[in-house]
């Protein structure tokens, strides 16, 4: 088991290194860090001096080497857009995105497991069909359209129809000036809903199919035959085993969420990783973008690893092997 984890962790290192090099080269090829100087009408010699200072005159591999050295020491550079330390920028953005991710994953997990288990136990019931239909709908909704429609019908609409002074749910940022738990919740509902629709749809399908697999397996039938109460069979044996594949999928999905909420954060003005990406991209802020891409890739790799570990740990067949 430890051997397995170690092997996979070791394998992650070259992947992230090569990914970071490609990212670095890609961003370098796309953005000119001195473009801003040209706009501010600096002289040609000043621009040349800046290119030398940034090391842009050196071969790409050298540039990457010195960037990597600094990156590993925690010096991620200074944003060309805001002149702020990139570590501070990304730290702040991660804090906000993490709130969305944590709440989103919690909500999605509870709902998806609920739907999955119910659908599997009551296969072909009316509700099962309804859930399946909703799942397909959830997978087919363009996520930003869902967000906008939700604002229209759950925030702006009710406010106009019932002449409220506030919309019942907020859609700007994570909190208003006042604060408070209720205020926080009213800000969270819409973005969390928007980001969970697809996840719930995907996870509940997984949960349903793995629950069906487990419930039709030999040991469940044996347990039932031995007279173990249905409730206990479902919870103790069925659910527990059926959760194994879902946990793996969840870990993989969560890793992708840290860099994957660009749309949700844009719609709901959440100053997280997605918004940082858009701001940096539109400003051509190469230093921030490089670090951003490497950090989000690292999240994906780390959660992939976590998925492997969780899988090996939860599934006895792998542990034995």
């Amino acid at each position, binding site marked *: 088991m430890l051997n397995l984890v170690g092997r996979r962790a070791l394998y992650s290192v070259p992947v992230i290194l090569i990914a970071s090099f490609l990212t670095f080269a890609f961003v370098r090829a796309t953005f*000119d860090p001195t*473009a*801003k*100087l*040209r*706009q*501010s*009408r*600096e*002289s*040609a*010699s*000043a*621009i*040349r001096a*800046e290119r030398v200072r940034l090391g842009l005159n050196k071969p790409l591999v050298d540039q990457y080497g010195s960037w990597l050295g600094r990156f590993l020491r925690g010096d991620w550079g200074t944003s*060309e*857009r*805001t*002149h*702020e330390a990139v570590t501070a920028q990304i730290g*702040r*953005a991660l804090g*906000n995105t993490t709130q969305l991710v944590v709440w989103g994953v919690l909500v999605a997990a509870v709902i998806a497991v609920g739907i999955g288990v119910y659908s599997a136990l009551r296969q072909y019931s009316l509700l099962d069909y309804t859930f399946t239909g909703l799942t397909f709908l959830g997978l087919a909704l363009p996520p930003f359209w869902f967000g906008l429609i939700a604002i229209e019908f759950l*925030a*702006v609409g009710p*406010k106009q129809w019932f*002449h409220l*002074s*506030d*919309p019942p749910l907020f*859609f*700007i*940022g994570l909190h*208003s*000036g*006042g604060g408070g738990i209720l205020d926080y919740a009213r800000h969270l509902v819409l973005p969390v809903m928007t980001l969970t629709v697809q996840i719930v749809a995907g996870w509940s399908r997984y949960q349903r199919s793995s629950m069906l697999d487990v419930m039709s397996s030999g040991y469940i039938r044996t347990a039932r035959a031995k007279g173990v109460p249905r409730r206990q069979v479902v919870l103790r044996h069925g659910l527990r085993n059926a959760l194994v594949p879902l946990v793996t999928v969840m870990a993989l999905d969560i890793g992708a969420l840290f860099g994957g909420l660009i749309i949700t954060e844009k*719609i709901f*003005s959440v*100053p997280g990783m997605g*918004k940082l990406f858009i701001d940096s*991209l*539109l*400003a*051509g802020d190469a230093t921030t973008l490089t670090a951003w891409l490497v950090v989000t890739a690292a999240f994906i790799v780390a959660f992939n690893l976590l998925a492997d570990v969780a899988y090996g740990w939860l599934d006895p067949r792998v542990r034995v092997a």
Partner: protein
Amino acid sequence: MHRWLRRAAGLGLSGCALAAVLIPGPAASGLARRVASGGEIVVGAEQEPDCADWIASCAGSSWGVFTMQEQTMPRVFDVVARGRQWVYTPSLLMAGPPVLSTDGGTQVVRYPLNPRAVWSDGAPITSTDFRYTWDQIAHGTDIFDRTGYDRIASVDDSDPHTAVVTFRTSFAGWRQLFGGVYGIYPSHLLQGRDRDNAMKDGYSWSGGPFKVQAWDKGVDVVLVPNPAYWGPKPKASKITFKFLTDTAAEFQAFQGGEINAAYPAPEPDAVRSIKAGLTDASSLVNADTGNIEGLWMNNAVFPLDSVAVRQAIAYSIDRNAIVRLLFGPLGVSGPSNSLNPPILAPYSDQHAFAGYHLDLAKVRQLMTRDGWQRVGGLWQKNGRTAQLTIVSTAADKRRELTEQVLQAQLRRAGFALTVQNRDANTLFGQILPAGSYQLGLYAGVATDLDPGLCTVFCSSNIPTAANGHSGSNYTRTSIPALDPLLQQVDTDNNDATRVQASKAADRILAAQQVALPIDPLPNIAIWSKRVSGVRGDNPVYGMFWNLSQWQLQ
């Protein structure tokens, strides 16, 4: 200074309240109860400034000026309305008007300082601060724009109460120095330190009515009164600028009472919301701005290297229809007819381009005389078709509407138009400097009351490989008769001859049709009826020029 400043999706800063239109909303509904009492005003800000070091290249956002700079940085001149004109007037920092002398051909300006003027820590604002400011801008690295400061030879601070500024070459726009969107920096706090590092994330000192209490990045900026301010004390106890980067969200927040005032860019979404009527609100629309949205032409590429073709294009376009479409609901109807924005009316011929209006017969005449033939609905010359591309800022609804109307209008006149929009950064950082475009739709912005078209039309400012692509003459205008006139506008300290030169330049620009002005990008201000003290718009400082007089009832 003629700059390309950033404001929301487009560009902009400025205006005056001449064309103010009050749009009352329907019957008042409930009180906006979310806003705390005690004179705490919340204002929506459409764009978050990237940094608060106003002279660095990371600044240059008009919202940086609105939210922090103008409330905290002392300046030599205020910009105020006098009659129908905007003029410079000495600020409270001055003990009297600055004195200009040009004896012996050397330009010297003496600034008498108000002895009561102090920084928030009680230290007086002195001539050393002038010296420090000049030194930073003229000799610092990574500076947004050095115009003017690079002409200063020295700043004499031997008398702390009089700054004596000596120029190397004469500079007619000297009133924009030590003020505008830069301000004066406290040398006693910054000398010997890394200025950029000390200021970029916000700073607690102030030489204005407010000081920055906190800048919560991505969320808001909070201003509180500066107790040491020697001028009239602010009435509000707290001003919060809340960043709402989405126009629709901004209007929803205003209607919901989450914000008490907003200064939205004139995007179709904003125009639509205002037309629909706002509840319990006052609003103001001002077309007398420092902006000029235009159709800029690359004078160096086929077929726009021909004056006749540029003129024919101008005659193909119904600018009235475009302005009516974009701003008709706001009461703005006529197009702009000068490449100088409305606030520079004293220095410009605001009717220079009035002769260009939709006239297809004229198009036919000009094109035929230039050797073109109409084949299959499109003009052709020597086997080349009049196929044009236009660039602008992507995802900008207003500009995309304009482009599509232009497309239809030009098609009717025999020109095919293809749109190749890119994000603003790519457009202004690469495409325009490289000259790899034909037509461009964007705005020029004046941030002061001095004409300065040399930066965008003098042949010496054409971006080339030799100057590191750093000039701003994106149209690649090169007219021998124009250069001396525009240079005179920059250097002539005699106002009468300066005005003459500027107007003559305007007429040459129109005759050569180097670019076609379209509209002045009206400024829109909206505020809750509960906020009193809002007194119209300002070409440099927006609706926030008298923020200290605002209060919430």
